[in-house]
């Protein structure tokens, strides 16, 4: 089992994701520079957070033109699990792999804080260890995380069970329907704004209790190991 962490110029959470996957979750993961065109060696890909190309123009839009993105699109079609976190989510949206758009937070300010989200869809490679309505304590850290989508497309999202996580109790950025994460129709590509890698070790939680956010990575591990067995 081998995961690729796709690194763009300006990514800044790749080392965090690398640490959590290798040292906490126990999946072997390595960096893949954005100029790579061949990504056949990986069983899943993660696009980490950060400020690829300094968020110039619009978050994620330049990274979406990287050579590696064509290869990622092909792999997405083949069903490879692909997870975009924060800036990774923005890149997946800009690449057209996920519907909707991520725009500036409604208060026009960057926001970094812990909050709760709840689980809606447990049928993805990233959520198979959750139960519907589970609560997750997790931090956000973004300035352009307000998820927006047209009404008809929103209807489709619900229809296809593509809303994976929603914020609970408070809407931190003005997202439509408090949406925190969505997946594509097949469910193999997911983008989420909060940072599960920051909530995967008890010592980093504000109350130093174990958060179940690590189940996102454990679900992926579970998915990949059962997939490999079959």
């Amino acid at each position, binding site marked *: 089992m081998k995961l690729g962490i796709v690194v763009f110029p*300006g990514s800044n959470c790749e080392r965090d994701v690398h640490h959590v996957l290798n040292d906490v979750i126990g999946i072997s993961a390595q960096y893949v520079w954005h100029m790579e065109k061949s990504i056949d060696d990986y069983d899943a890909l993660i696009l980490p957070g950060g400020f690829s190309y300094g968020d110039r123009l619009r978050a994620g839009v330049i990274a979406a033109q990287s050579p590696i993105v064509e290869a990622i699109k092909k792999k997405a079609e083949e069903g490879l699990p692909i997870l975009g976190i924060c800036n990774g989510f923005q890149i997946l949206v800009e690449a057209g792999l996920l519907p909707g758009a991520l725009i500036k937070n409604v208060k026009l300010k960057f*926001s970094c804080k812990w909050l709760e989200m709840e689980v809606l869809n447990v049928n993805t490679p990233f959520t198979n260890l959750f139960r519907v309505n589970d609560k997750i304590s997790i931090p956000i850290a973004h300035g352009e995380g307000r998820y927006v989508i047209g009404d008809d497309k929103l209807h489709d999202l619900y229809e296809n069970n593509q809303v994976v996580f929603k914020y609970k109790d408070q809407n931190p950025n003005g997202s439509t329907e408090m949406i925190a994460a969505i997946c594509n129709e097949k469910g193999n590509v997911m983008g989420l704004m909060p940072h599960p890698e920051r909530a995967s070790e008890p010592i*980093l939680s504000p109350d130093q209790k174990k958060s179940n956010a690590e189940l996102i990575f454990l679900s992926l591990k579970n998915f990949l190991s059962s997939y490999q067995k079959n």
Partner: protein
Amino acid sequence: MLTRKEETYLQKKLGRRPNLLEIDMIDAEWSEHCSYKSSKKYIRSLPSHGKRVVVGPGYDAGVLEIGDDDVITVHIESHNHPSAVEPYGGAATGVGGVIRDIISMGTRPIALLDALRFSSLNDENKTSKSKWLFKNVVKGIADYGNCIGVPTVAGEVEFDDSFKDYCLVDVAAIGLGKRAQIISNHANEGDQIVLAGNPTGKDGIRGASFASKLLDDKEDRSAVQIPDPFLEKLLIEATIEASKSNCINAIKDLGGGGLSCCLSEMSHLVEKGFEVDLAAVHTKVADMSPNEIMISESQERMVYIINRKKLSRFKEIFNKYGITYSIIGKVHGQDNLNIHFQGKSIANISCDLMVNAPLCYRKSKKPGYLNRTKKGIEMYKVKDYNSILLDLLSNPNIGNKDWVFQQYDHEVGLRTVIKPGANASVIRVNDNKFVSIKLDGNCKHCYLDPYFGTLGCLSEASRNVVCTGAEPIGIIDHLQFGSPENPQIYWTFRKSVEAIIDFCNYMKVPVVGGKVSFYNETMSSPIKPSPVIGTIGLIKDSSHITKCVPTFGDTLFILGKTYEELGGTEYTDSIGYSEYGNVPKVDLEIDRKNNSAVLALIQHGLIDFAHDCSKGGIGAALAELAISGNVGIDIDLEKIPNNCSRPDYLLFSESHSRFIIGSKQRNRVKEILRSKRCIFSEIGEVETTKILNLHHSRKEIINLPVNDLACNYNTINHIMDGT
């Protein structure tokens, strides 16, 4: 501009008249900002040695050894003048500069901290710039730090009207690396000199000289630099990669004085001469004169000295990140900085002469205002203690700073164990080693008594670090004053330095980094003396990390005695007496004893939390505890060891060396505190009622629901966002 005396000195040393380029270069390097010519004499005596000190102050960043060959690097800078003119760019480039000092040592930046000062946010005057400065300084720091992926883990904000239409923006950074990776900064004949990063442009021309004079109403925007955090991020990664590949013999970042100061200081550091061709420098625009190229302060630039054989590897790495660079010269000879342009030598100066500006011997005189401020205060009788406490909590100097911290990505890097807003922040080095850090300042105390005010900042910063379970291992200082040419201001500077020397010698904690910033004056007056102190602490066991959250069942103790020390307190300020009275003094022996007692209690696992009593006194400290734990607290104020003549003095005195401690093992706590001969007492309990209840002489003087406290405590949010 050079003084006549300096010009004469220069000409004598050179043995000829300097040309215009040489004068520009010397003007930048001999500016107060770069040369420390007014302060060097005194800051030389700061204690900077210790068993953990690998590199003391003077280089780009101080280096402290923290066991197992791990080292942390630490540095503090300010960007006051640029931020007062263009707060967003000024603050952002301040972050950029201090980060480059950390990467110059070969270490990865892992945390940022900031200390900010503005005039009052409550100023009804529509022309007040305070909110605009505050909002944009915070956004500048946030946008830069967030983008480069270095968490801003702690900060401190103070509001005082001596900063009217001005601001102080101090940024500190911490780096982490291995001792063997520290760049040795050496050079050999024939090594290549590479300038990498931003093309050199016309931005920030004469920035160092700009920062070394008083601001006038012609705000000089061309002296402010333009930030590019994305490029900085690439420079961090490329520099670390090149350093790991052993490509780099020496590094230096370009800050104040641009290429001119960088090359002369570097040449002096490696004890070699440099031959540099300015035509090779990549520039933003074609029509730049050699003078402009030499003193431009365009940001995100670094100079590297590379062995010829390593050059191809170096290029490979910088090409991968898409960073522009140019080979601008080579190492040659022993001392001289020889600058060429279009085939001609256009400047040739000894770097030794450049970096050793003639020192200025400034006059010093005790300020006259200090006679006036000693006068006693006639205080009215208090009728409603509840409203005084609520008002104090809604004072932005005391109230919570979430509005600031939430704009900073304080989590990136997976190290932030204790988040900003508590006593001190704690960052993870590895699972058995943690660094605690806090910046503190108090201009009101320092104005009334620069010696004890500064001693108080040192005491407070260290106490905050101790509260988290850490032993202080190093101090950084940032000394910010008005013009050193004013003897009364210079006197306050000297008192401040004396305090740091006395504290560090007594506590045996070294100063590992620092900076002096003079000429901080507004149109109407100089700022109050504003030293900012940072304490770095080390925690060697994760079980010692102590958060500041009281829980039901805690018995509350106070450690330390409360004196009638109301001078410069938030309480007297709130009723218009800020500039009178005796400021809190620090008894170093008691300070050390109390810190070591608290550390012993933490290491024995006996206490749930320790909280510092500082701005707003015991009253604010107890309210903060109730808010942080969302619990009720019941206290008998008469049990607090004190010499105060009135309950309000007892509640709001800002005496130092005091801790409020919560424990579920009260008897063992008492035993240890007695054995250490500490002054302490048991003062109350944490309760489930969610009410702060303080009584004195059998009378309830404060009775407030925690929700009301929390609402008032959230005042900065109300002011800035209207929510």
